[in-house]
């Protein structure tokens, strides 16, 4: 199939030219460095774009214009903000545990970067392709919470402390649901690797494949993912009207920037995992039998599909965030332990039955199987 816009062509050309001109060790070294730089750049650029998009969309939800001063339609606003945050003084606070205070933002950002590395952005656009991709993502993203807890504790501020404790309780609870929702799909696809999952969704996305059960898992994943990122109605750890800024009250300058960046990227990561696991990842929409249509769809590059689908989910997350009031801590835990978790457990059971009884769409209509 013709895929002229794919980055794969460019990358394989780069690889072969490098291999032709120098020994393998140096080729690998250069490629590692290139990949790392590309990931870091993507991380920063995505954050900037997300912050701008969030502010603009939020404004539209709220009958406002949003940023419109720096550049046309304010598109340079977040770049200006980045410069501002870089130039800001990092305020030294008395009576804090300085080592932990400085370490905390790094935990946040390292955790989200590690997760970021494992996401398949397009066809062959993987930094790492673990065969336990799903497990890896859940494991690594759980490191971020340590950053929050340390930040709250080391700030020596009671508001920060309360924020951190809330965050801890929230994260530990909702990670369960998120994990179970992903496990439901692991049951469906029989693999933990992202690339295999995507390959299996060529004609039938997982969200359709396991119909009822998948859709429930999808919704639960979105809710708990949303909660894990401390956003929207679940922003208790930084509840502005209660705790001023929660665990990062005392942070300024770049340190605050790290928290801020990590928060936005976590939103992106959750959306992209949901895309990969439920919505076919970078796979274009294809209908078995309609080769002409499929050809046209393949013409659109895979990373465009990926970012398109992720964008829709991010919009959904913004929409939810700006529509609801904040939950209280006991409501939050009620939602998890009384609703999401039991539903999730039942859901896994349903999924197992669906798979064993051959009731998934691909079983019922073999034409949909890849």
């Amino acid at each position, binding site marked *: 199939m013709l895929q002229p816009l794919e980055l794969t062509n460019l990358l394989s050309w780069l690889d072969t030219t490098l291999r032709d001109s120098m020994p393998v060790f140096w080729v690998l070294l250069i490629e590692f460095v290139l990949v790392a730089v590309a990931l870091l750049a993507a991380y920063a650029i995505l954050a900037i774009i997300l912050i701008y998009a969030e502010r603009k969309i939020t404004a539209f939800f709220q*009958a406002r214009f949003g940023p419109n001063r720096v550049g046309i339609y304010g598109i340079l606003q977040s770049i200006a903000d980045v410069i501002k945050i870089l130039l800001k003084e990092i305020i030294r606070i008395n009576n804090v545990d300085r080592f932990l205070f400085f370490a905390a933002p790094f935990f946040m950002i390292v955790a989200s970067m590690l997760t970021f590395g494992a996401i398949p952005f397009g066809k062959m656009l993987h930094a790492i392709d673990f065969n336990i991709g799903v497990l890896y993502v859940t494991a690594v993203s759980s490191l971020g919470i340590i950053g929050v807890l340390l930040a709250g504790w080391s700030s020596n501020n009671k508001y920060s402390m309360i924020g951190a404790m*809330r965050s801890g309780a929230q994260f530990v609870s909702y990670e369960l649901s998120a994990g179970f929702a992903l496990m439901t799909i692991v049951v469906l696809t029989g693999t933990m690797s992202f690339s295999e999952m995507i390959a299996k969704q060529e004609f039938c996305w997982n969200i359709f494949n396991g119909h009822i059960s998948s859709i429930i898992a999808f919704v639960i994943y979105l809710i708990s993912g949303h909660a894990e990122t401390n956003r929207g*109605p679940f*922003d208790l750890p930084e509840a502005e*009207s209660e705790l001023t800024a929660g665990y990062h009250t005392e942070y300024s300058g770049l340190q605050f920037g790290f928290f801020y960046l990590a928060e936005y990227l976590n939103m992106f990561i959750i959306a992209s995992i949901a895309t990969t696991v439920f919505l076919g990842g970078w796979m274009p929409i294809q209908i078995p039998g309609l080769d002409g249509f499929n050809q046209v769809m393949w013409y659109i590059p895979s990373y465009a599909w990926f970012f398109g689908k992720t964008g829709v989910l991010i919009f959904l997350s913004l929409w939810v965030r700006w529509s609801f*009031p904040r939950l209280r*801590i006991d409501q939050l835990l009620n939602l998890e332990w009384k609703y999401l978790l039991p539903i999730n457990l039942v859901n896994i059971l349903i999924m197992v039955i669906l798979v064993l009884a051959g009731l998934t769409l691909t079983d019922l209509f073999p034409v949909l199987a890849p």
Partner: protein
Amino acid sequence: MENIKKLILNTITDAVIEDKKILTVTVEPNKLHLLAKTLRDNAAMPFDFLVKLIGMDWGEKLGVIYLLASSTDLSKEIVLKTGTSDRENPLLYSVTDLFETAHFNEREVYALLGIRFINNPDMRKFFLNADWNGFPLRKDYDANPELNPLSLESVEMIDTAPRIMENADGKLIEETVNIFEADDYIINIGPQHPSTHGVMHFRTALNGEIVQKIDVHSGYIHRGIEKLSENLTYPQILHFTDRLDYLSANINRHALCMCVEKAAEIEVPDRAQYIRTIMDELNRIDSHLLAWACQTNDLGATTAFIYGMREREIILHIFEKTCGGRLIINQNVIGGVMFDIYNNFQKDVKEFIPYMREKLKEYDRFFTHNVIALGRMIGIGNLSKEDAISYAVTGPAGRGSGWSCDIRKHQPYSLYDKVDFKEIIRTEGDSYARYLNRLDEIEQSLHIIEQLIDNIPNGEILAKTKAIIKLPVGEYFQRIEACRGEFGVYIESRGDKTPYRMKFRSPSMALVSVMPLICKGEKISDFIGIGGSMDYVIPDIDR
């Protein structure tokens, strides 16, 4: 009222009863508590609502004036007076055990006049720091700034309160009590905090997320308006009223205008009455919209906050076109209104009414039935009717507890006896009842405006007044229904062009004073949410 008189004389034989507009009773300090108790427990007409507690410096005597009203019929009032001629160490008996609202008011009197109250459980100065020299509202107060220099030092908060208690054999004991236990986990909510709606300071003891005790510190923006008023003429004082509860600026100003007009016997023209009433109701909608918006914001719904502001902007625009002010609108003057309505006023208001109704429906869809919002409001911050009366919580909050306390119904002023509207009463007493009350009152205000807007008569908008307004000697009370509850003005005139004593009753002070009661045992998030539902305005407290 004759029965009441008999009752008073039966209880206190040497009480001096004056038959003024309001029955005025003067008693000795040691008999006041008994009299107040008798009046409060009087079954036929309980005088259980302490409207105002006014500290007075009569020159030769220091004392307190209590304006009591019956909670069943707010128009039945009694004034109690007591005083002591000991200016060095004035001691009076507290009525805090009868009316909880007296607690903060007595502390205020102590701060401003230096009268201490026996049996008040916490006799710290309200508004002022403990080390303030002098008592500002006394006539012999020395306002020399060198006595109270501005300090930039950080001062440690001392959580102990002095008090004077009377033991069983009538002996007075001075003692200090701890407000917090040594191992309490205390956080300072305020003075700078996004959800205290101003410069308010709650010292809050927490157990995990649960609020155990709240200690209210106020006075961060106290401006001494009552003291300033003593040197200003009545028209000049007017502009202060807008700055008390700035969200019901027009209504506060209306109250002072009415008080002066009543005292000076000025007849306000009909047209002015119509304009005043319409503006008051617009002001009420404006204030309730802001209250709604802030409450939603306190609960974390930023979008709803901006929607509320969007609708409020239309009213502010009408205000701006009418009288050139948006928040501080300067519309009422003694004898009428400062500006006539502009040409398209009626059209603008009539366009606003259906628009607002539609938006109210949108609010219902958006927030009122939202499952998260319900969970954060229903059953939270319960205030019983008895407590509401005892703490003198009026306005939408008081009516949310089932207490009919709308002055517009009980003591109609302006045109409120001519228009048809419902007093919104709910009996639940929780945050949600207060929330719904506000939205329903917006609807009622729209209804009132609808009845008036087409019938504004032609004519003068300002009565002819003397160039210099001097009020005859006497005491004048005026009560009015502001957005947050009952706003009151008290003027004691000695026949000058300036008042001898001016006192404003701020509804917000009662709302704040009840916070420690209803927040106890709630979560800290709910503390914020309850604050939003009470909707206090700090400058109103820090007069």
